[in-house]
């Protein structure tokens, strides 16, 4: 069993938790803005004006909804925008949310139904999976009840003279909910911890497996070189003394050894692709595509190929790796349009939903979509080596590189109608490894 390093496990757990905090901060920013506008709408609907005989003016509730609601919302939203995921942000959001509850209860005239906002808010705050946030929120509710109980007891208890401990009864129901939410948070964190440990084990297994395949491939090269070399020598020296059948067998040995050599080299390059350090840079795809097209000059100079290259954006990633991706896709397009008298290859990109998608489309031999899942597998080929040379490592490398950038790969095609290969990259540098 692979060794689980506590640091990596903690790192993964932290990354997961930080992602939850950032997402929840953003959700609360949206919610609090919505609540602010809803509060103003409620004030305008229920009490737009205050009256004094036949005279009226804007009700204090409207000003409270606009100004006080704005104050309650401003800092939480500002922090969620500028410091998402930080400790101070989620605690400020907890305070702001509970004060918003108090304001909304006030604006609706203390209706019992609006008190459910408090309990709903606590449940929503539990999304953070950080129980001290619930303590902060509950402390606001407790302080509100204690202060009201001291200065305006009617507001909480309906009567002016009450027992001083009555606030405990009200806060108890908040604590009651907190109790179950905290249990849920602790269970959830425990599950997240388990996921982090399993992911660490998986990563360790992959690393060991890659090291093993690298080592095996590397060690296989020497004996294979001997087989290849001595077979070639035998071919040269014993050519005349062998009969046709023996010469044919010897040719097969030499060809197979060469092919095995190429497979081992490909396996090593695939392995290196997963192990090498990624460089982070802003990469303009346009020049990269042009270079890749130029590199194919020797293969394309005798052919008629119509290249269509659309506007290509800049992306974040490793320049050398992305160059290899484009080289593989364009090389495939050139290879599989070989049977066409006039080949067409189109390269383009579009950006949407936080990712940039690049495609390479050709009018080549295409493929049957029922085998699409095999396309990006290592040493998987949909055409015979006789028809189209290659080992089936190119698209596997493409997928591995794009995955390391936090992106996706997919393809579409039809037999004899061409194919289109796509890869998407996140527009931010996050997600790569």
């Amino acid at each position, binding site marked *: 069993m692979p060794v689980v390093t506590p640091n990596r496990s903690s790192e993964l757990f932290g990354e997961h938790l930080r992602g939850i905090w950032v997402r929840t901060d953003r959700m609360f920013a949206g919610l609090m803005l919505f609540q602010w506008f809803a509060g103003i709408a409620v004030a305008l609907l229920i009490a737009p004006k*205050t009256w004094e*005989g036949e*005279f009226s003016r804007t*009700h*204090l509730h409207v000003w409270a909804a606009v100004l006080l609601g704005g104050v309650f919302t401003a800092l939480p939203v500002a922090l969620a925008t500028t410091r998402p995921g930080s400790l101070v942000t989620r605690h400020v959001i907890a305070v702001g949310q509970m004060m918003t509850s108090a304001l909304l209860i006030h604006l609706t005239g*203390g209706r019992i139904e609006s008190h459910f906002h408090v309990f709903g808010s606590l449940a929503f705050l539990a999304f953070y999976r950080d129980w001290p946030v619930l303590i902060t929120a509950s402390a606001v509710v407790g302080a509100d009840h204690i202060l009201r109980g001291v200065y305006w007891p*009617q507001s909480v208890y309906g009567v002016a003279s009450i027992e001083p401990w009555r606030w405990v009864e009200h806060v108890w129901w908040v604590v009651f909910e907190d109790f179950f939410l905290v249990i849920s948070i602790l269970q959830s964190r425990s599950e997240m*911890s388990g996921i982090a440990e399993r992911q660490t084990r998986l990563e360790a297994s992959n690393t060991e497996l890659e090291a093993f395949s690298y080592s095996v491939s590397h060690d296989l090269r020497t004996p294979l070189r001997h087989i290849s070399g001595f077979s070639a020598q035998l071919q040269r020296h014993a050519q005349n003394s062998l009969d046709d059948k023996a010469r044919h067998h010897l040719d097969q040995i030499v060809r197979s050894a060469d092919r095995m050599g190429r497979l081992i080299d490909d396996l090593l390059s695939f392995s290196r692709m997963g192990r090498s350090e990624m460089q982070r840079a802003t990469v303009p795809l346009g020049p990269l595509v042009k270079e890749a097209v130029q590199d194919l000059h020797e293969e394309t100079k005798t052919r008629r190929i119509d290249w269509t290259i659309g506007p290509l954006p800049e992306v974040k990633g490793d320049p050398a790796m992305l160059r290899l991706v484009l080289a593989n896709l364009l090389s495939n397009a050139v290879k599989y349009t070989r049977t066409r008298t006039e080949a067409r290859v189109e390269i383009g990109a579009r950006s949407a939903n936080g990712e940039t998608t690049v495609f390479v489309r050709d009018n080549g031999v295409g493929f049957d979509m029922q085998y699409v899942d095999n396309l990006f597998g290592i040493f998987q080929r949909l055409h015979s080596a006789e028809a189209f040379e290659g080992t089936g490592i190119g698209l596997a490398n493409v997928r591995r590189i794009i995955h390391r950038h936090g992106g996706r790969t997919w393809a579409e095609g039809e037999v004899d109608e061409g194919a289109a290969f796509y890869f998407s990259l996140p527009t931010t540098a996050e997600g790569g490894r």
Partner: protein
Amino acid sequence: MRHDQTNISSSPARGMLLPAVAVAAWLAVSGAGMWIVLAHEFRQGLAASAPTAWPEKSVIERVKDRVTLVMLAHPHCPCTKASLDELSAIIARGKDLIDAHVLFIRPEGVSSDWTRTENWRKAEAIPGVHLLVDEKDAEARLFGAKTSGQVIVYDREGRLAFSGGITPSRAHTGDSEGVEAILSIARNGAAARPATAVFGCPLFGPRPARAERSEPCRS
């Protein structure tokens, strides 16, 4: 191995100075704002100077087999909705014991439909309650009321038994001493607290002839 004690949220102290100042200022402004709103919520309206015996000049005909409850209401006052909700609760609990009247003021110079508001419709929906338009505020002045939501209760003998509000604060429904007092008078003939604070809009506008004014309904 568990990660509950992970310290991934820690930040350098110097980077926390600005947020700490911003948070402190925000808490202070928020707290002060909430305090102002609550202080207004509990600012009482002017209490009525109700006659100690039933005013015979009233257009309301007093019944002798039940206590008589009179509520003076401003048709537009948003706070009075809560008072009408509480009146509805009183009528439901003190059925057949209370003869209730809601008088909506109609100052001089306003249109005839000025009183037909949501408050009117709310009062109209309470079973058994009599509604009346108080032309030129005559009845309100007769009962000495100054604040919308003022409730005055006379016992079966026509003696003043209760004068005050029936909400715990401005525009807020919920348990209040006024409700309990009125129900006690209806059932037992007396209450421990015959007067409570009233919360609502001033019934009368700021006219030079009137010296007394009440705090506008603000919360």
